[in-house]
Structures are given as structure tokens and as C-alpha cells.
């Protein structure tokens, strides 16, 4: 009897009231914040890979920001999904990314260093606009 009353009450709350659930608003706001931060890092890292002058600086941009950006985007997806099986899978993806991405970055850096690729040292000079096409 009591259980059925509680269930009926829950049903009217869930279906009848059209008011906005405050917890859902907070959850979605946090998810949007996390997604935006992750997108900022991903796009910034990509821009760094395109524009930085040297292999090791490019590696820095890609390795650092990709790890953090991926984790933030997956955190945003987990927050907006809640405790479901899908968010467990998102968590697994985030776990594997946070294990493998720095390892791969380290392996690429080590291989390039062993192969004799030297970092660009000294003061940075902006490339002359006239000989931009020749270098690449």
C-alpha cells in the first residue's frame, strides 16, 4: 500500500510536473564546461602541431594537450551520461587513453632522439615570408 503510494507519487513527479530539474541543469552545465575545456585543449594542441617550428615542440603540443583534452571531453560525456554501462565504457576509454597516450609520446620522442634528430636551440627567429615555400 505504502509502496504503491510512493510509486504513484514518483510517477506524478516524473511525468506531470514540467518544472526543470535543478540537478539536471547543474549536471549538464558541468558537462558543457568540461566539454568546452576539452575542445579548447584539443584545438589548441592541433594548432600547436601545425604552427610550432620544431619536432620536439610539436610533440610537446600534441602529447600534453591531447592527453588532457581527451580526458576532459570523456569526463564531460561521463557526467552527462550518469551511472550507466555506457559511462563505464567511456571510463575504460579514458583509462586506456591516459595509459597509452603518454607512453606513445615518450616512445616517439625517444625514437627521434635516438635517430639523431636534434632539437632547435637558440633564439627563435620568425620565418621570412619570402622563403616559406622553399623549406617544407
Amino acid at each position: 500500500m505504502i509502496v504503491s503510494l510512493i510509486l504513484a507519487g514518483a510517477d506524478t513527479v516524473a511525468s506531470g510536473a514540467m518544472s526543470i530539474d535543478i540537478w539536471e541543469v547543474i549536471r549538464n552545465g558541468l558537462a558543457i564546461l568540461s566539454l568546452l575545456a576539452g575542445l579548447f585543449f584539443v584545438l589548441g594542441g592541433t594548432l600547436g602541431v601545425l604552427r610550432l617550428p620544431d619536432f620536439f615542440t610539436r610533440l610537446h603540443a600534441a602529447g600534453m594537450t591531447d592527453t588532457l583534452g581527451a580526458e576532459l571531453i570523456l569526463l564531460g560525456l561521463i557526467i552527462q551520461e550518469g551511472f550507466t554501462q555506457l559511462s563505464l565504457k567511456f571510463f575504460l576509454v579514458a583509462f586506456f587513453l591516459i595509459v597509452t597516450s603518454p607512453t606513445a609520446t615518450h616512445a616517439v620522442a625517444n625514437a627521434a632522439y635516438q635517430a639523431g634528430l636534434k632539437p632547435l636551440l637558440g633564439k627563435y627567429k620568425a620565418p621570412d615570408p619570402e622563403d616559406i615555400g622553399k623549406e617544407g
Partner: protein
Amino acid sequence: MEHMMAYVNLGAAFLILISMAMMLGRLLIGPTLYDRLLAVNSFGTKTVLFLCVFCLVIGRPDGVDIALLYALMNFIATIAVLKYFRYRALDVSLLKSHITKGEGAGK
């Protein structure tokens, strides 16, 4: 609320796609081999992110399994390509005692 989050996810997927296209630029113009390898690795990470976000957009959670698989395959592929370009063969043991001095380090 549901519709708004779907639009947010769609925008995120679109921005990740733009980022992937920019990473393809580094893949094409990269001066050294390692630049290209770095671009491929980063492109794979972004593919995983795009799959995860896009699965939520279209409402079919099957693709997250593919994203999980892709994250692992991406790492293994990077290590395999690095090993191939170091030793010019894939059936070399990575233990140090098997490497004879002066040989194999592909400089």
C-alpha cells in the same frame, strides 16, 4: 534539455572533425618521419574522441566499443611503426641483450 545536449554534442563532434582535418595537414607537410608518425597518433586519439561523442549524438552506444578497440590498436600501431623504422624488420626482439652493437640502429 535533451535536445540542447544533443546540439552541444553535435558541435563538439564537428569541432573534433575540424581538428582532425588540421592534423591531416601536418601529416602531409611533416618534414620528418617522426612528425608524420606524431600526426597519425594524434589523429587516432581524435578519432576515438569523435567516435565517443558521435555515438551519443546518434543515440547508438555500439560505437563506444569500436572506440575502445581503436584506442588500443592506435597505440600498438604506433609502437609497431616505430620498431619497424628503427630495426627495418618486425621480428626483432626488443630485449637489449639481443641487439648486437653497431648493428640495427637505423641512423
